[in-house]
């Protein structure tokens, strides 16, 4: 391809006019050029138009993925968050049993169910209960008592396992049956219907979990 000096200068003028939105006639400009110049300039305009459109699509689609990645990278599982929150409270001189009792009170758990609540809470805090089943009511109570943002607890509850550095969270989908091997606690097997505390810890788990 060859391009005379004046045609290159004219092409730079054309690019500037296009950028200004002057709508110059590209066809008219191209008509005055020899074949080589026309092919070079048309290739530039084609590539520019395609790349500009592609770039816009990529950048427009990016923000939700960035937020999702951020949430996944920052999220930790609920047992880890509870451990951190408890440590802060214990360091401040608070008593663990008293903390659990206050969480139960905040969740309006009747006195006669408080022992069961404490048992389930202990299991939740060391990972024996799937945090995805925990109800917002319980998370609210933990949030109030521990002074943690409820959104942080919600995020932690829905990310049961800490992501390893090699994992690409935004595109990784676990295969069926791959999710975990740790045996999980189930509501106590009884003849009667699940009670308030059962529902509080296992209420949101889908069937079969």
């Amino acid at each position, binding site marked *: *391809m*060859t*391009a005379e*000096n004046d045609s*290159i*200068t004219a*092409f*730079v003028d054309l*690019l*500037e006019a296009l*950028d200004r939105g002057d709508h110059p006639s590209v066809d008219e400009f191209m008509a005055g050029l020899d074949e*080589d*110049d026309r*092919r*070079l300039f*048309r*290739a*530039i305009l*084609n*590539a*520019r138009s*395609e*790349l*500009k*459109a*592609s*770039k816009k*699509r*990529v*950048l427009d*689609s*990016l*923000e939700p*993925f*960035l*937020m999702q*990645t*951020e949430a996944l*990278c*920052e999220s930790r599982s609920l047992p880890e968050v509870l451990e951190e929150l408890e440590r802060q409270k214990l360091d401040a001189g608070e008593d663990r049993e008293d903390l659990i009792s206050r969480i139960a009170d905040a969740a309006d758990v009747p006195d006669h169910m408080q022992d069961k609540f404490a048992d389930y809470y202990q299991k939740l805090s060391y990972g024996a209960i799937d945090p995805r089943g925990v109800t917002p009511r319980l998370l609210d109570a933990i949030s109030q008592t521990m002074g943690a943002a409820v959104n942080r607890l919600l995020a932690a509850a829905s990310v049961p396992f800490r992501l390893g*550095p090699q994992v*690409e*969270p*935004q*595109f990784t989908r676990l295969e069926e049956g791959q999710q975990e091997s740790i045996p999980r606690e189930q509501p106590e097997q009884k003849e009667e219907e699940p009670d308030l505390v059962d529902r509080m810890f296992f209420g949101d788990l889908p069937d079969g979990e």
Partner: protein
Amino acid sequence: MSDKCLSDEEFLDLASKEFSQAQPNMEGVRQGFAAVADRITDRCLLRCKRDRLPDSDAEDIAQKVCIGVWQGVIKNRGEVQSVPAFTMKILGRRLADYFAKRKGKEGRKADILSSAEGLYGTDGKPREDIEADSPGPVEQVMDREDTERLLSAVNEIDAEDREVLQAVLMGGTMNEIAQSLGIELGAARYRLDRALRRLSQKLKNSR
């Protein structure tokens, strides 16, 4: 996202500073990433285009690379050594995966030709709903080949010329190019003029 255009180094400084806080301002860091993502997208799309990837695949890879860099920034608490180097590392891996999944050279050639096949109906006859002055299949393939030749040539010229040509190809206006290169508008125009002249000569010599 923020209008403030941070350089890669300014962004890494910002991220590092925020991550050293107990409560980092993640929204601020994410907004600062906008300018970085813009440049990452440029690099990825130009490279993918040069490698003849279809637009949708190129966009998919560019998006994944942006997310990969962002993920690296978060996991390393802003302590990424170099955004361009990290970008090229992830891009290289993504492209290797991509080509490993593709059928090879013949497959890429078939993709180029298949773009022209869209001008024909299922009966094998030219589609009548296409405007008469639209480029025909041969012209379309020629245009595409010219574009690919152009991008290969741009990649092979001096870094200074390549910088300004790539900025034009990515849709940058002369004012934006001058701003990003930190030079006067007249100087940007001169550099583009000179780069086009050299590119034209290079293409002429390669024929």
